[in-house]
């Protein structure tokens, strides 16, 4: 009833290929756009402190969505398992730091794209073993990336400009006359910057996935030998998946440090973060862009809210809530895998199906 395709006729191929072919989808996206661009930055989220809503929920969520998109390209679309996501995000962050300190006049957008490219190159290098191995073997190869790179983040002091704390810190830096990053930047400008980046990257990802490259990834995922036989080059397909994925992850890492945390050390890129991103992908749904959105939001927001509620309503201390949310995260993974291996994205599809029929069950 709410969601019907009947009567929506398409007379051009272009309309068939549109990102949101249904009228209802367009309305939904419009509402989301108004909410994210106007309502949330002006009023915050209902029932939450404005600073908290921005700094602890909205900005990290959007950054993690980019991260999840990146990992989902690799894991969900190209079928190459990776546990090095945390380290690749670190590559992006450190590259961004080096770019803005070596060239103080560089435009932030250019620095961001460049650091994404650096991360992509590193991703391709560590993705090279994927040409010969797959599955668990590949996972161990990416673990090598994870441990080697986090070691480098600590030991190679050139990366953090030899400062004593060993942390990278965002200096104040402006773009078009507005302070974008650093301690003096306002939450709202950072919010808008991350939001626009997210939209651009989502648009790019959805088009790449619908196109020739994305199809070759999915063929490799579904059966690599068969894909090779019908003319997909595994070298190009697998390495481009690694490059694309690391590009996204690197940008997300740079955004995470400079648009959200403000400063970071090697611990922000350790293996537990790699797991967290993996969880976002699994819970959201492998091979789905909508799923990346839902997974990242769900995995990030639920523990934050539980911690807040536990602290304010029941008076549990932080230690208990921390452990409780760790257990909950693990349990959620297991439950999702048992009940709905395709993740939240599949639940959303089922809901849409139900909405289409409701209230007439035929």
């Amino acid at each position, binding site marked *: 009833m709410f969601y019907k395709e009947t009567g929506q006729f398409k007379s051009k191929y272009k309309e068939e290929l549109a990102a949101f072919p249904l009228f209802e989808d367009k309305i939904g996206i419009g509402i989301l756009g108004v909410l994210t661009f106007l309502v949330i930055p002006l009023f915050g989220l209902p029932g939450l402190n404005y600073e908290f809503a921005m700094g602890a929920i909205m900005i990290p969520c959007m950054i993690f969505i980019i991260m999840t998109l990146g990992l989902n390209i690799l894991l969900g679309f190209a079928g190459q398992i990776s546990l090095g996501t945390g380290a690749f995000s670190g590559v992006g962050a450190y590259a961004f730091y080096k770019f803005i300190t070596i060239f103080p006049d560089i435009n932030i957008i250019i620095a961001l794209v460049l650091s994404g490219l650096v991360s992509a190159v590193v991703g391709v290098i560590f993705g090279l073993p994927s040409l010969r191995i797959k599955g*668990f073997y590949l996972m161990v190869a990416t673990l090598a990336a994870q441990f080697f790179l986090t070691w480098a983040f600590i030991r190679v002091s050139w990366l953090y400009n030899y400062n004593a704390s060993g942390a990278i810190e965002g200096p104040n830096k402006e773009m078009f006359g507005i302070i974008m990053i650093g301690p003096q930047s306002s939450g709202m400008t950072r919010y808008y910057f991350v939001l626009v980046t997210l939209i651009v990257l989502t648009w790019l990802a959805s088009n790449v996935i619908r196109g020739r490259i994305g199809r070759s990834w999915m063929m490799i995922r579904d059966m690599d030998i068969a894909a090779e036989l019908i003319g997909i080059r595994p070298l190009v397909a697998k390495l481009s998946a690694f490059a694309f994925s690391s590009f996204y992850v690197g940008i997300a890492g740079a955004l995470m440090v400079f648009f959200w945390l403000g400063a970071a050390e090697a611990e922000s890129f350790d293996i537990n973060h790699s797991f967290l991103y993996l969880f976002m992908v699994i819970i959201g749904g492998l091979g789905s862009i909508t799923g990346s959105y839902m997974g990242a939001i769900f995995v990030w927001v639920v523990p934050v809210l539980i911690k807040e509620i536990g602290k304010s309503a029941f008076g549990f201390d932080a230690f208990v809530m921390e*452990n409780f949310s760790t257990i909950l995260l*693990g349990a959620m993974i297991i439950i999702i895998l048992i009940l709905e291996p395709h993740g939240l994205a599949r639940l959303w599809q089922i809901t849409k199906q139900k909405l289409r029929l409701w209230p007439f069950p035929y």
Partner: protein
Amino acid sequence: MEILHMIFIAPFLDMVALPDLFFQGLWDGFVGGTLYALLALGFVLIFKASGVFNFSQPILMVLAALALVSFYEMGINPWISVALVLVMMYVLAFGVERLILRNLVNQDGNILFMSTIGLTFVIIGSAQWIFGGVPSSMIHAELGFPVGSSEMPMFGGAVYFEHIDISAAVLASILIGILAIFFSKTKIGRGLRAVADDHQAALSVGISLNQIWVIVWFVAGIVALVGGIFWGARSDVSFALQIIGLKALPVLIIGGFTSVPGAICGGLIIGLGEKIFEIYWGPMMGGSVEGWFAYVIALVFLLFKPQGLFGEKIIERV
């Protein structure tokens, strides 16, 4: 030239100049290697018997060590604590089978693997909640393992043997031997191999999948306990042990996922390699290269021998 000399010549000159130090490194690496082999065996057991790549093996080790120390600190006799930990491991194995594996029969290997990552997080959270996250020291002395070290004059210098290391190497070797025999000779072992080969065929000749899984996870728990005692004795008992436990993965890569001798060889290669590399090449790279060296060896191995030293050759058909 200077750099080439530092990398390719100087370390070997050092080895010849101070053979006692070199031998000390070999011994330390050997002990580490046997313990890695033991951990890797925990992975191999479960992988062979159920096709599950059990990512929670390292955290099982942490859990066993933490529980043992906590029980002892509650004032329980050390050997009774060991028994309690074994009971706990059995309950855990039973729970894992009931709550997770039974519901995931016939699923893809990736899904099973991810469910063990979920299990890892459940265990991390609960262990921290129940036992606290403060590092404590292992109770190996109370369990009757020898402490202290003896010095043996050798090559014009002296080599130190920590007594706990000797007992670790001996006990780990014995346990590996028992497991190998258990796998190849006993009735349960044959059942395990049948399950690994084909679930349905095993079921049809009357082997209970569920029972086999409980047994395998329990054995993996025992391995985790022994590993936890000795790794805990070598460093503190804390969640950092999980990172050490993860090093069983490169061991598996080198040895091959399904092979018991492979796990042993791989463990020794990793143990010796990383110790020697740390001593002779580590300082020029800024130290603590032990964290990633094992993975890099594994990476190199993968490029030349993707199925590992003793792994079965994978033949793929469309």
